[in-house]
């Protein structure tokens, strides 16, 4: 966030500011709303996870199915996040450093996964790669499982999280312009040197935030993955799907134990953003508002 104008930072004249009573009332309502809708559920996750003591909490996490789910989630994120990061960098470079026809169309295409329901995203891949889909019979004949297997989970997750890094970089690189890069090229740097020594230092923090957000979403995706995974316990269950299985089995403490790991991940993500906003305000400003 930017600093407010000097006028609001200093004490504003009374005709221009709200009366104290209004100010306190509005602030109280806002805080109450925030507490009720965001803070209370978050507290409940940790309270429920630890309600039966630490031993049960750790037992739930050491369960073989839980470990398998954690491993699958980590593997998926380890494939998806680097892919979408490279894509985000390439897309942002091509969109912000060059003029070409159909640029706004390309931006809309990149935004598309944000607009599509995760369930529909999963459905699209089932319809194409599923047993009765376009490539289904061919894949089955060659013993290449996609749906109800890791490739399907990776595909669906990549689709859902595709815009995150690009979306964080494009507005920032647009405001930074091309002068620095053009200067470096004129002075004899090659493309790779220019990218590494000039562009990358300018976008490090926005890139980091995009990656962290993409990672949180990749590890937490539920709708798309639940369609393509087939819910095979210990094999194709990711952490969110394992939470669902436990919750529907009335194993609430275990469900919240796994959920608390994902909640911690979300809080770490926010913490990183908080840190970046404080110490690297200039870089993030352009990227807000999405």
């Amino acid at each position, binding site marked *: *966030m930017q600093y407010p*104008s000097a006028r*609001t930072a200093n004490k504003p004249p009374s*005709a*221009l500011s*709200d*009366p104290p009573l209004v100010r306190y009332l509005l*602030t109280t309502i806002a805080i109450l*709303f*925030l507490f009720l*809708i*965001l803070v*209370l*559920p978050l507290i*409940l*996750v940790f309270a429920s996870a630890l309600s039966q003591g630490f031993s049960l909490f750790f037992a739930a996490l050491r369960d073989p199915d839980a470990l398998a789910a954690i491993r699958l989630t980590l593997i998926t994120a380890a494939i998806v996040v680097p892919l979408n990061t490279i894509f985000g960098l*390439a897309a942002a*470079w091509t969109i912000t*450093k*060059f003029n*070409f026809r159909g640029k706004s169309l*390309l931006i809309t*295409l*990149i935004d*598309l996964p944000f*607009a599509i*329901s*995760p369930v*529909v995203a999963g*459905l*699209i891949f089932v319809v*194409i790669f599923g047993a*009765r*889909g*376009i490539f289904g019979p061919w894949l089955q004949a060659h013993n290449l499982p996609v749906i109800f297997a890791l490739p399907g989970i990776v*595909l669906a997750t990549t*689709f859902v999280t*595709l815009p995150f890094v690009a979306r964080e970089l494009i507005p920032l690189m647009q405001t930074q312009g*091309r002068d620095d890069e053009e200067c470096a*090229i004129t002075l004899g740097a090659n493309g790779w040197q220019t990218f590494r020594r000039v562009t990358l230092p300018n976008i490090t923090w926005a890139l980091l935030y995009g990656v962290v*957000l993409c990672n*949180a*979403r990749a590890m*937490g995706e*539920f*709708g798309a993955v*639940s*369609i393509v995974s087939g819910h095979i316990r210990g094999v194709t269950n990711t*952490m*969110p*799907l394992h*939470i*669902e299985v436990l*919750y529907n089995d009335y194993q609430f403490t275990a469900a*919240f134990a796994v959920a608390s790991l*994902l*909640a911690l991940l*979300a809080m770490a993500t*926010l913490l990183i953003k908080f840190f970046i906003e404080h110490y690297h305000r200039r870089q993030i400003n352009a990227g*807000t508002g999405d």
Partner: protein
Amino acid sequence: MKSRTVKQQHVIPGFGLTLGFTLTYAGLLILLPLAGFFHLTAQNTWQGFISKAILNPRVIAAYRLSFTSAAVAAAINTIFGGLLAWVFVRYRFPGRRLGDALVDLPFALPTAVSGIALTTLYAPKGWLGQWLVPLGVRVAYAPLGIILALTLIGLPFVVRTVQPALLDLEGELEEAAASLGASRGQTFFRVILPAITPALISGFTLAFARAVGEFGSVYFIAGNMPMRTEIAPLLILIKLEQYDYPGAAAIGTIMLLVSFLLLLTINFLQTWSSKRRTN
């Protein structure tokens, strides 16, 4: 001709490589699957498509529930998200930074986690449910719970859209209104509110678009009773579990068309509001 323009524009190298990679990646992951999907649904006859996607009471009930609860949640978010943005931008109080950072939580918190947390809070024996259910207020396993879950996930969209608009607001306008004798209330409703209306509308649309497709959090709290608390994405899942691919694809097609329409609206709104801001 072509080589001349290429030379003129591209001092910076890497155009062919990055554009090629971007197009291939987005094409393979987005365009090709979408094209395949539409190709398959196009094999339906019109009559079959309409009877599966539209003329079915259970499907109609699901659309109605999805769209109305998304609209109500987006409206709640427009009011409270606008209020939060106002409070964060205009007032100074302890914990403001923390509250502001917390607004992004729904971006990072998996929907399955918020889903089971909300359900447990409002279940008949939950922290809040034990007080609300005796009063006759059913949140979990009722439409109210769906609205609550959709409000949670849509909140940051409104706050993060309205905040920049409030920051852009020039103090001179309010000073002019005050010096011309307007009360604070008049200044707010005649000067400030019209200036941030485009941002509020954009925020509403973004929150609505996100809510219409949401599945994870709603799945847990809705109770999923046919005709009553079944949202459209859930119906797709049910059809797939019954191996009714054409039925699932038909509903998915309608949802996709709605998504495209919303994306176009959002693009239009954003150009409109940025134009208004520069004027």
